[in-house]
């Protein structure tokens, strides 16, 4: 806040601030109500169900660790789904970090007046549901599809059989989560002041040095948010493995869904979901606890 000169202005401002304080809190009430009833309560319900009798529906009335015991039973192979999801999410983050960096850099410093249009082109796919887009890839890669058909028409042997493999699942995840890496990264890179880079260049720093010593550390908050967001979304992703992966790979959310639907074992599904929530929650809290959101979003 600006420090004002005269004492009268100062008290006026203080009174204003005092009044605003309550206005701000009041403005937050609807959002808080929504989060309490639509986000917190369902999570509490899931935690309650995870301690209920297996295959039962009596949450909060019974307490048993049987569901967790089932999951941690050495004979149970559900941990492999967990491991697959974690590995896929990790790979997605690593690939996207490399893939999105040049585009984020372009949006922040190169594209100038075109950056609005370029951003829009990357935002728009978010408005098309992911299964439509993933199914488009199925039509692209399938035998007799766009790729295979084009190669055949050119007299080449048909396209490779990429569909319904773990690699196709990974490809789908990289494809779907690109915007979630790109935009936080762009915010981060826009926070790097131009003068600092020019000063570094004037003092004879090489491009690599400028990147390593100035650009990367200053853009890090944004890059980390992008990586975190991509990871937590990818670890719970399921459409990619179902549509593009053809269920050649079973991810953890698929197991949770089966427990909730076909198996009708809500307590087991809840216990699995709680473990997934732990991973997501711990990472998210660690990731965003120290962030200065005013600085990142408001560039103040």
């Amino acid at each position, binding site marked *: 806040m600006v420090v004002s000169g005269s004492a009268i202005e100062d008290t006026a401002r203080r009174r*204003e*601030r005092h009044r*605003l*304080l309550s*206005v*701000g*809190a009041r*403005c*937050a*009430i*609807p*959002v808080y109500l*929504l*989060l309490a009833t*639509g*986000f917190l309560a*369902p999570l509490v*319900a*899931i935690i309650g169900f995870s301690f209920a009798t297996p295959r039962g529906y009596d949450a909060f009335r019974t307490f048993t660790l049987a569901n967790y015991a089932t999951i941690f039973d050495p004979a149970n192979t559900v941990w492999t789904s967990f491991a697959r999801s974690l590995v896929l999410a990790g790979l997605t983050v690593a690939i996207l970090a490399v893939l999105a960096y040049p*585009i984020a850099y*372009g949006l922040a410093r190169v594209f100038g007046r075109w950056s609005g249009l*370029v951003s829009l082109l*990357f935002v728009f*796919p*978010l*408005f*098309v*549901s*992911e*299964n*439509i887009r993933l*199914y*488009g*890839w199925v*039509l*692209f890669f399938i035998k007799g*599809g*766009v790729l295979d*058909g*084009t190669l055949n*028409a050119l007299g080449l042997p048909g396209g490779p059989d990429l569909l319904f493999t773990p690699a196709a699942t990974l490809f789908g995840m990289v494809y779907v989560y*690109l915007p979630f890496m790109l935009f936080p990264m762009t915010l981060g890179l826009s926070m790097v002041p131009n003068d600092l880079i020019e000063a570094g260049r004037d003092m004879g720093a090489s491009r690599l040095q400028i990147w390593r010593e100035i650009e990367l550390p200053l853009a890090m908050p944004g890059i980390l948010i992008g990586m*975190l967001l991509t990871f*937590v979304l990818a*670890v*719970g*992703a*399921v*459409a990619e493995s179902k*549509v593009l992966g053809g269920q050649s790979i079973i991810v953890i*959310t698929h197991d*949770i*869904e089966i427990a*909730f639907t076909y198996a009708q074992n*809500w307590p087991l599904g809840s216990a699995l979901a709680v473990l997934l929530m732990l991973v997501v929650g711990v990472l*998210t809290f660690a990731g965003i606890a120290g962030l200065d*959101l*005013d600085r990142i*979003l*408001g560039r103040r």
Partner: protein
Amino acid sequence: MERRARGSDRLIWAWTIFVILVVYAPIAGGFLASLGKSRYFRFPVAQYSFEWWQRAIDSLEIAQLFRTSLKMAALVTLVAVVVAFFGALAYARYDWTGRRLYQKLVLLPIFFPQPVMGLALLLWFNALGVTLSWQSAVFAHLVWIVPVVTLVMAIQMYGFDPALEEAAYDLGASRGQVLREVTLPILWPGIWSGALFAFLLSWGNFPLSLYTTGPDTAVPEWLYAKMVAGYTPMVPALGSMATIAAAAVLVVAGLLLRLRRRRAEP
């Protein structure tokens, strides 16, 4: 030095254009597939026709899907804009004691896998004894969309100068007048883009709808059911229609905003 920098700029442009082409490749692929006459997709398409589009347009079932999706998106937009507007004021405009914590709590639903959130909501609705329908799905959408729209509006509100409001108060305007005459006109572009996000994100949402619509069906859900069992060219046809509808909304909204802005600056 200068020339080298320009060379790398060109590389960045080339890479970005390539990635954009890849991003739109499956959307184009679906479009091509919807224009084939045959029951099964073969590329190159032997005979182009709008037959499957026509069938989709004539289908009463699909008209019902569109109505459901539209109803949901409209209601989500209405509620999300109001809640998120105040949410964004609390986020970026006012300085209050709990603000730092609030800013982070708002992010939590965004940092959460949507399929898991959908299942958690399904369980919660069941525990409450709520009958699932498109209305319960609207609530599910709001849990995710309100935080997103809050952020979209907050980013624009950071640029808002509170001195303008203070000046209006000093001139004797009431709180309602200030909101109507000063705050809303300045924040209008942010509200407009927030509304767009709300509408289009709800329109395209699949994971939350899947578990929370009950007997009602939204467009993405129907498409998914057909993808898993029983492909017909109606699937890419309807998918392309939904995509074109989203693009049309975006274009019209952009034009309206431009028009308004031009009128505001005589």
